[in-house]
């Protein structure tokens, strides 16, 4: 008897394959090239991500949406959009790292291969249409990040960041896996498409096993996305990891994991809308309030950005809550605002971290808001101006990408009838302005402590990152049509 193999649709996972094979080539190449030539690997990794972006564009125009590998992979424009955002984030982070690693004497080690492996996990996460594919993708991405967080081997803070991230990450993984097993027990399947079919019009929606499974899976997601009250690890991990790694993980992980969350709840569990939307509603409110309030008291820029990223995740979550598939108009507005916000967040957050990277000196990372950022505008007017734009955008000031993102998110929430979320969102945005504007005020009004020293030289790759982020942040704020149209075109979560 022959067992028929499942159709072997390699074209469907081309972006993933390109990055994964690129990672393996980089890993082997790493063994044979002399340490002085290691930066070349960075440019190889950059090339790999660019080729993968090309593959995504090719698939975008091709025969999507389709399911592949026994329905475990869904290749649709939603996944492709998220993948492109992730790859852009990865490409910018790689550019950010090339000179940073050298200057901080961190050594390259397996940095770029690991980064590529992590990116391959993120891509798989965006396409996962089965809880198994989903948690394997999540592990590929997390394992790489645990090591990257600890990649500054001699530094105690980096090691501490790695062990904390590792323990909390695996802990949340335990919740996800056990929750999955309960969902499997209740429905007999882990496939998103099959789950949706099984739950439609069945009496299963009140099944305690299923609901307990959903709750555990959501707890796992909340840990991974750093939603309050499961966010305690974030500030320590973000501030301990090397800045370039922090930039990468604050962006890529969030984007890919939010995509997976959205695909799971709207693609597989629309029948449980009442249950998960209530849970996420509560999480969104707590996250927005706690993240933004805690950020106010921070003096370390990396810790402040960590809390800020918690707050930002709360805003994205608002739009996830509004994704009610029974009202197509509302759902489209909500999902496209999730995608737009993630795109805007990628550029503004990476930009802010790029400025932090640019200011770092080999002996001192220059992270103190009062000491190192005061009077920055007089010494380095360009960097200060860029930082001001990113801060204003994160704070949601009009004419920036962040403002458009918040506008779309809150409008989607109001359309779906969740006005309390919109109210809390607007109020916490106002609170958030306090700490975002404080950075701007320090830079332009403060007295510089480092006035006598020569301004930091900004290497070319870093300048490219800053320029791209700056242009995108302003462009998406003034003319959001292009990304927004793309996001609206990306709304078909596959379910043929």
């Amino acid at each position: 008897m022959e067992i028929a193999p499942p159709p072997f649709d390699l074209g469907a996972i081309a972006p993933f394959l390109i990055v994964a094979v690129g990672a393996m080539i980089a890993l082997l190449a790493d063994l044979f090239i002399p340490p002085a030539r290691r930066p070349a690997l960075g440019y190889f990794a950059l090339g790999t991500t660019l080729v993968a972006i090309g593959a995504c564009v090719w698939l975008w125009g091709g025969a999507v949406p389709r399911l592949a590998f026994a329905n475990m992979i869904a290749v649709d424009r939603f996944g492709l959009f998220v993948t492109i955002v992730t790859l852009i984030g990865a490409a910018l982070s790689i550019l950010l790292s090339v000179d940073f690693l050298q200057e901080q004497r961190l050594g390259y080690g397996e940095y770029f291969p690991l980064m590529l492996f992590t990116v391959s996990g993120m891509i798989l996460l965006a396409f996962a249409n089965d809880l198994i594919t989903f948690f394997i993708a999540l592990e590929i991405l997390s394992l790489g990040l645990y090591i990257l967080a600890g990649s500054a081997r001699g530094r105690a803070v980096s090691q501490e960041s790695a062990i904390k991230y590792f323990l909390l990450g695996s802990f949340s993984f335990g919740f996800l896996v056990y929750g999955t097993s309960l969902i499997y027990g209740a429905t007999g399947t882990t496939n998103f498409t099959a789950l949706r079919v099984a739950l439609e019009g069945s009496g299963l929606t009140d099944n305690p096993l299923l609901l307990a499974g959903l709750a555990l899976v959501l707890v796992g997601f909340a840990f991974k996305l750093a939603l309050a009250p499961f966010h305690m690890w974030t500030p320590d991990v973000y501030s301990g990891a090397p800045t370039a790694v922090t930039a990468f993980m604050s962006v890529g992980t969030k984007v890919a994991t939010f995509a997976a969350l959205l695909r799971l709840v709207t693609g597989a569990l629309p029948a449980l809308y009442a249950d998960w939307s209530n849970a996420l509603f509560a999480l969104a409110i707590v996250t927005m309030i706690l993240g933004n309030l805690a950020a106010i008291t921070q003096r370390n820029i990396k810790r402040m950005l960590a809390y800020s990223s918690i707050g930002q995740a709360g805003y994205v979550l608002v739009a996830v809550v509004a994704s009610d598939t029974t009202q197509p108009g509302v759902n489209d507005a909500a999902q496209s605002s999730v995608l737009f916000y993630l795109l805007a967040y990628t550029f503004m957050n990476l930009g802010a971290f790029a400025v932090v990277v640019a200011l770092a000196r080999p002996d001192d990372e220059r992270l103190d808001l009062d000491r190192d950022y005061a009077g920055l505008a007089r010494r380095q007017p360009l960097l200060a101006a860029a930082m001001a734009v990113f801060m204003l955008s994160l704070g949601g000031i009009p004419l920036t990408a962040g403002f458009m993102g918040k506008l779309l998110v809150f409008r989607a929430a109001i359309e779906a009838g969740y006005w309390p979320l919109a109210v809390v969102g607007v109020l916490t945005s106002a609170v958030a302005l306090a700490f975002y504007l404080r950075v701007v005020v320090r830079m332009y009004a403060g007295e510089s402590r480092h006035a006598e020293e020569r301004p930091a030289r900004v290497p070319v790759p870093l300048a490219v990152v800053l320029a791209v982020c700056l242009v995108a942040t302003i462009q998406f704020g003034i003319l959001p049509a292009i990304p927004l149209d793309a996001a609206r075109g990306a709304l078909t979560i596959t379910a043929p």
Partner: protein
Amino acid sequence: MVDNYAIILIMILTVLGFGALLLSIGVLVRPYKPTPRKLQSYESGVPNIEPLKGRYTPRFYVIAILFVIFDIEAIFLFPWAVAFDQLGLFGLVEMVLFIVILLIGYAYAWRRGALEWV
């Protein structure tokens, strides 16, 4: 039938009860005056000079790490071997790909010197 089990149960209870009785008599009767010296673990009369736990060279950890990862990957070979007849060429190609990926990891560990002993 049930009676036989009852006998075993009575015996277990008796044994447990008797043991507990002896131990509690001991606790009540014996003097208990702990001193730091008395609480030390006994090592032929001289004070302990190093932690009792032995120290291992980190090489053991590296070997253990490599062993765990390559050992567990072999788990996928078993179902494949069982269904080999039915899987045909496709199964063979798939498994070769899988092993090639493992070999890349192996080559990496080798080149990096993780397999060098001493």
